[in-house]
């Protein structure tokens, strides 16, 4: 098995760019990643591309070839769709391709264009990640589904809206200085509590924004990096994926995310590390409650304790285990199909030491990325580690 290195990463600005096509967004991120890697485009052998709702927002299917073409590449290209985990699953396949020595150089990434839709339209588009017959036809929305998880969590384990507001405040603070972030402004707990309700108990500031943007990474085999003198000091050492029932009503417990727990267990075993070894994490905080569930599934806290950790500041940049130093989906933004690989871009910079928050984790060696689809009916976890070159 070949070791997989991250040779380069690229991101667009995450924000409101309704006029920009996803093909152009991905071109910007992909070319930036190739430039960052210093890899010759002619060496790229495959493109793995994540996108969720292009059929609805851009009337575009068959997006793999379009993504490759946007980078000037004429190679096998495949689009992956797994709701908000679309580029997480794309990444997993890219890692496997390189590990199996099928390819030496691949581009992986994703893009999403969302703000060309009205709010009601994007709410409807996001809802297709839920079970259409038994959830959407009952009036379920994406925030509504996470609200049911939050209500169940409060009921079983305790916790308050104020506890969750701490997650939003933290992630806004972490995004300060992130030039790719949708929001670079601080908010207070009071701002979050006073924001309008979306689906109780979740309010507007519990939710990530609607975002246009793209992400990309160039993955290479260790041999390729050494042979070609490529500076690639971060390795993807673990990959895991988990699955669960589509509808909340069919889950064993609405207040937990076992698919992510399974993905984490697999990824840790793969990398030969455990939760205690993790120095920094990027997790899928599409809603504040989602970050709490993620930190429990990743094994950082016991089930039911994640909300306490959020309240006590354990996951702030000054805390013992900084989570979402990018600003997370909450403040950096959530261009759905781009999010999974954007987490890898942020972690790579944190481990290399060229991230806007690097000063808070100067000795970080192990990072974890947690990407979730729908209400965590699908999830991927990847372990990244700094390596000697």
């Amino acid at each position, binding site marked *: 098995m070949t070791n997989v290195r991250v040779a380069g990463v690229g991101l667009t600005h995450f924000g409101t760019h309704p006029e920009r096509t996803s093909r152009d967004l991905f071109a910007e991120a992909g070319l930036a990643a190739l430039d960052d890697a210093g890899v010759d485009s002619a060496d790229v052998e495959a493109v793995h591309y994540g996108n969720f709702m292009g059929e609805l927002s851009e009337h575009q299917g068959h997006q793999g070839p379009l993504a490759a073409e946007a980078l000037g590449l004429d190679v096998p290209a495949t689009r992956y769709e797994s709701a908000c985990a679309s580029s997480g699953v794309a990444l997993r396949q890219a890692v496997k391709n390189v590990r199996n020595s099928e390819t030496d150089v691949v581009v992986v990434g994703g893009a999403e264009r969302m703000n060309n839709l009205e709010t009601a*339209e994007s709410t409807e588009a996001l809802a297709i990640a839920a079970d259409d017959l*038994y959830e959407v036809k009952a009036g379920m929305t994406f925030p*509504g589904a996470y609200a*049911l998880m939050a*209500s*169940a969590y409060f009921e079983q384990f305790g916790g308050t809206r104020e506890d969750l507001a701490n997650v939003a405040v933290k992630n806004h603070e972490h995004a300060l200085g992130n030039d790719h972030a949708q929001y670079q402004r601080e908010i207070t707990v009071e701002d979050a509590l006073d924001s309008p*309700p979306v*689906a109780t108990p979740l309010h507007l500031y519990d939710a990530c924004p609607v975002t246009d943007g793209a992400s990309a990474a160039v993955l290479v085999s260790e041999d390729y990096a050494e042979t070609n003198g490529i500076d690639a000091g971060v390795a993807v050492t673990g990959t895991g994926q988990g699955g669960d029932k589509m509808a*909340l009503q069919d889950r064993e417990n*609405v207040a937990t995310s076992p698919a992510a727990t399974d993905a984490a267990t697999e990824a840790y075993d793969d990398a030969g590390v455990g939760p205690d070894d993790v120095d920094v994490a990027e997790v899928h905080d599409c809603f504040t409650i989602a970050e709490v569930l993620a930190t429990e599934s990743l094994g950082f806290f016991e089930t039911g304790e994640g909300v306490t950790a959020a309240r006590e500041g354990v996951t702030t940049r000054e805390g013992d285990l900084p989570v979402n130093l990018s600003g997370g989906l909450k403040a950096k933004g959530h261009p759905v199909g781009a999010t999974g690989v954007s987490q890898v871009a942020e972690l790579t910079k944190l481990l290399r030491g060229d991230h806007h928050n690097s000063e808070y984790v100067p000795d970080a060696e192990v990072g974890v990325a947690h990407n979730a689809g729908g209400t965590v009916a699908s999830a991927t976890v990847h372990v990244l580690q700094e390596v000697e070159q």
Partner: protein
Amino acid sequence: MSDNVRDAGYDDFLDALADGEGYYLECENGHGSLPPRRVCPHCGSREVTETALPETGTVESATEIHVPTPSFADDAPYVVAVVDFGSVRLTGQVRGADDIESGLEVEPGLDETETEGERLLVFEPR
């Protein structure tokens, strides 16, 4: 997708619920699920049989939705709940209750959405 074409299994389930003869599918190991199913999603058993839905269930989790999809624009705000019926849970809208908390006992039934007049699974307090 034509609105005139039924979703086999799902629409039959709603028909039965409307007639006061609600059912779910139960496997030989006692796991519940909703149609259409050829296997139990919980254990893979292929022995799934229609079983009468209990007359009442209890609210397990509920949310009041303020930002709806276009199909529910005139319905909002409305309450969506996951309701526990023992071996199976249903998701629908709670109507006719002021204070909706977990543990509330409700009966399932069928109504229509205000926005488009589509069939809607609802729960009303016992």
